């Protein structure tokens, strides 16, 4: 077992003919992901590498190929519409890799998809990897091996560090979920922790957080009250200068929370072992 993606995942790539879309489609195909369709407006009828049909819209792609998962490689100004489009086409799992989407756009997106039975992962995330089965997004496939560790992270490349560190000591992952670092995203820590808690393959969980927001604090509450599986964590940004992001009003809303020290404290109080640096994580999982 695994969570979210596996061998039955039928993927449509939104923005498949773009530079990044094409590169990572090939990487995904090479990894063994079942990429059934691509989508680029105006290029319907073309083929990618002579085996992936391209459609003019997600709806047409779904009708023709039964795609059940979408990954978005589309410039930030068009990505919100790509998410709406995938949601409207009935795709139940949408992974948005795109970075730099405007916050107000994401508020509209999130409030819209919350009305539908749709899970969005990201944006500004590296995607998903179920080692040995399927990879959706940009996580390099060769840095992780199959195993029993569930990995969830707000960061992109930092996630790779952790997967790689696990691999170096022979530890593998059930699924790795990059939820993305944007202030407004589709899936948060608690959503993924819950899935790992119910996934028989997952034995322990690694959670990679960072400064800002209160998601890690909520996760700590959830871990303390609902989780039976051990969780190991790392929080990035211990040395980050404070107040570089938002002014007055933001500080009011977040009630002064969001520092790395506070998050570490909350997690440790919930029984989570917190690593000093990512390469320390494997030893804490032993």
């Amino acid at each position, binding site marked *: 077992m695994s969570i979210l993606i596996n061998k039955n995942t039928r993927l449509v790539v939104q923005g498949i003919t773009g530079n*990044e879309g094409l590169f*990572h489609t090939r990487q995904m195909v090479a990894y063994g992901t079942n990429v059934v369709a691509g989508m680029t407006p105006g290029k319907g009828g073309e083929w990618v590498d002579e085996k992936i049909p391209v459609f003019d819209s997600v709806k047409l792609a779904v009708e023709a190929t039964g795609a059940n998962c979408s990954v978005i490689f589309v410039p930030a100004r068009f990505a919100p519409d790509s998410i709406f489009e995938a949601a409207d086409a009935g795709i139940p799992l949408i992974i948005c890799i795109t970075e730099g989407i405007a916050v107000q756009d994401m508020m509209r997106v999130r409030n819209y998809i919350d009305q539908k039975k749709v899970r969005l992962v990201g944006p500004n995330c590296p995607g998903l990897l179920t080692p040995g089965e399927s990879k959706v997004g940009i996580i*390099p496939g060769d840095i992780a091996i199959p195993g029993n560790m569930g990995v969830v992270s707000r960061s*992109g490349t930092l996630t*790779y560090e952790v997967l790689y560190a696990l691999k170096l000591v022979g530890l593998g992952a059930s699924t790795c979920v990059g939820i993305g670092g944007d202030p407004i995203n589709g899936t948060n820590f608690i959503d993924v922790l819950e899935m790992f808690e119910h996934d028989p393959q997952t034995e322990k969980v690694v959670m*990679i957080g960072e400064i800002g927001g209160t998601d890690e604090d909520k996760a700590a509450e959830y871990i303390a009250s609902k989780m039976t599986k051990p969780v190991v964590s790392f929080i990035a940004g211990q040395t980050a200068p404070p107040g570089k992001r938002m002014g007055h009003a933001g500080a009011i809303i977040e009630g002064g929370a969001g520092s790395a020290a506070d998050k570490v404290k909350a997690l440790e109080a919930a029984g989570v072992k917190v690593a000093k640096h990512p390469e320390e994580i494997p030893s804490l999982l032993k």
Partner: protein
Amino acid sequence: MKLHEYQSKQIFARYGIPIPKGRVAAAASEAKAIAEELGGRVVIKSQVLVGGRGKAGGVKLAKNPDEAEVLAAQILAMEIKGLPVRKVLVDEAAAIESEIYFSITNDRAARKPVMIASAAGGMEIEEVAAKTPEKIIKVHIDPLLGLRDYQARDIAASIDLPREYWKDFSKIATGLWQVYSQNDATLAEINPLVITKDKRLVALDGKMMIDDNAMFRHADLAEMRDVDEEAPAETEARKYGLSYIKLDGSIGCMVNGAGLAMTSMDIVKLFGGEPANFLDIGGGAGSDKVAAAMKIILSDLNVKAVLFNIFGGITRCDEVARGILVAMDEVKPKVPMVVRLVGTNAEEGRKLLADAKMITAETLADAARKSVAAAKGKK
């Protein structure tokens, strides 16, 4: 991107929010002329993109044009929190009855815009929030539906605004919502919104922050950016889409991904070094971006060593290597460089850099340790 008070208030006025009469001046004589035009008492306000101007002496009341000239000259000679004052706003002085705090910003936990108001206006609002949170009223706005009239009314009632001002307050709330939503603001703040002795509501001070990710639809706002207020390196970084923040240490860091960049800084510190900067080259950076990033790092003369930590995903290690080579060719750096490349096309990247004299590292801890040692002149 932050806007100046005078810019924010100009935008407010466009959406029907009443502001005091006034104009911005870059010289004391200009300030005098504006004061003559306005007649009566005026307020001279330094225009710098930091808070606490009042406490720093950057806001003064002038009784007449001559005094305005003198005070403007004083303020224009000031530095506030390290920033030289280049402009002053000359506003007619208001006779204030009472002050209100009023703003809209993003509530990330609720995933909605939130309108915030308090009868304790003019004060440091963080202080009010900390000491008397019950005096802060928050109302969430549905991003698809927009602000509704009853929400403004609820706020007016909750801050005990006298009923005679409700209609005007409602219009200001609608204006502020438009300011926020039509300009992709992350903050649109009026502090204070005052009731004047002659019974008007006026936005005496204004502050706006714009979402940098939304600038593509706001060419007009992009023109308002005051590059004088930024470190030149930050201006340069933005031009290339790099996220750069200068710090005080000696180890320059170039990393892909904000989380990994922060982690690299953390681990440098853990091993006894001090990071010289935060620099995220973002996802999928090409060689030109990498070269620009390297030049920015090396423009900081405190830098004694540079740590490149690239874990390829959407970013390809070979592209990064190419950028490093281009930059090295141009800049001819004299400080040691520690490079760690892992992930997408790492092999190709390493091959490209094989001939350059660089210290290589396998793990992140190893890279950090080597950087710290290199900065201290050890190999």
